């Protein structure tokens, strides 16, 4: 069997290095925020993981549609990989957000639009795996999975719009500053460095994990085919 491709092995190492640099930038290099203090440093990883989480969910919806059109099971494997990796990253986002919210809002959790949408999105993709688990036929599993990621990908933004009708307290750091938002702040140049590097670092890590997960699924498929050949 083909051993691990060198590009992937190199990407593993690059991922570890950028994660290290990003940690340094977030924890040491970036200045301490005046009002919130040290806990604000969670923000860099919070945004980094949220970004790749969303990226994966969008990728999943797109590959789902591609699968429905092409009927090539390869796209189903890409879709599962995207959802699985994103589910973990998004969970990390929620946990990091809670860590920040405890001192900033004096509560671990509040039913704010972003928080609620994040929770609902997590539940949609957990449900996605439960749906897949209940179907044995791989072709039908792929079809239903694709349809469900499509439904989820459309419903999540609408959920966000609906809950926004109730008041929000989540800070908007990028883009327009809302005066109502609790815990908002404006970034200094050094903070921006740490911020953009965190985005870059998590994108690299995401690509690495995503690639590995696709490769794992491909290998699983190959094992399955070999097993069939042996039994025949």
């Amino acid at each position: 069997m083909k051993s691990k491709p060198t590009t992937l092995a190199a990407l593993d190492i690059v991922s570890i290095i950028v994660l290290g640099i990003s940690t340094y930038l977030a924890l040491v290099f970036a200045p301490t925020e005046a009002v919130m203090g040290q806990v604000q440093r969670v923000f860099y990883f919070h945004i980094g993981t949220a970004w790749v989480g969303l990226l994966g969910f969008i990728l999943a919806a797109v590959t789902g549609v591609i699968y429905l059109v092409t009927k090539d099971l390869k796209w189903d494997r890409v879709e599962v990989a995207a959802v699985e990796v994103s589910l973990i990253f998004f969970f990390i986002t929620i946990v990091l957000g809670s860590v920040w919210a405890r001192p900033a809002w004096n509560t671990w959790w509040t039913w704010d639009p972003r928080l609620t949408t994040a929770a609902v999105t997590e539940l949609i993709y957990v449900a996605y795996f439960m749906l897949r688990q209940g179907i044995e036929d791989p072709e039908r599993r792929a079809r239903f999975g694709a349809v469900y990621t499509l439904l989820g990908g459309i419903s999540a933004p609408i959920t966000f719009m609906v809950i926004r009708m109730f008041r929000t307290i989540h800070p908007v750091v990028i883009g327009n500053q809302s005066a109502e938002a609790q815990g908002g702040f404006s970034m200094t140049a050094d903070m921006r460095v740490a911020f953009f590097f965190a985005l870059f670092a998590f994108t690299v890590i995401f690509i690495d994990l995503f690639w590995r997960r696709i490769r794992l699924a491909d290998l699983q498929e190959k094992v399955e085919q070999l097993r069939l050949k042996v039994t025949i």
Partner: protein
Amino acid sequence: MAVKTQKAAAAVQNASVPASPNFFKAMLAVARKDLTAELRSRELLSAMLVFSMLVILIFNFALELEPDIRRKVTAGVLWATFAFAGTLGLNRSMAIEKDRGCMDGLLLAPVDRSAIYFGKVISNLVFMLIVEIVVLPMYGVLYGVNLFQPGLLGVILLGSIGYTAVGTLISTMTVQTRMRDVLLPILLFPIAIPVLLAAVKASNGFLSGAEFSEILAPLNLLIVYDVIFIAIAFMVFDFVVEE
């Protein structure tokens, strides 16, 4: 009952063979078959109604519906009741097709498959509306609230359309899985959250006599949700029933 459905399914086939595949005719035939079968047995409607009453009873004690609390939570209690009762209907309407192979009969009919979907949506919607028509006056009498306001009824209609449109699509998927009825609420609720929340918000607005401009936003979202999800379901239903 199953035999009846089978016969009705056969009737649908026969009816649509001579005439050139007429979309609306087929759609109404599927809906009529479901409604006729249900009117004869009344299994599903009675189950949904008794279940709704039990949910309201539980809410009564769980939330201790005192007059001042009642005013704020009425919309929420109603929509939670409709959503729970709705899953019963959605599950059953697809399960009876699957169990005796009636679904295959329906799929063999030479009509556009989305006609089957829309027929099913109509019958599910009618069941849900019947339950709502009974629950509303009952709730009104029990708690002394006037629920027969045209605005509120409109919201209930829009919300039920969105809920059954998504619910019918998802229940078609879940009846083909191993866990079946357990899976329907798990898959349906996170997708249906926007429609339920917008419906609660709009119903609350009408019940508390808010300005129409305040209710307009959730009302618009309800319409947007209905249109988007009916369109999506129309496009993907083929993939969900394909063998």
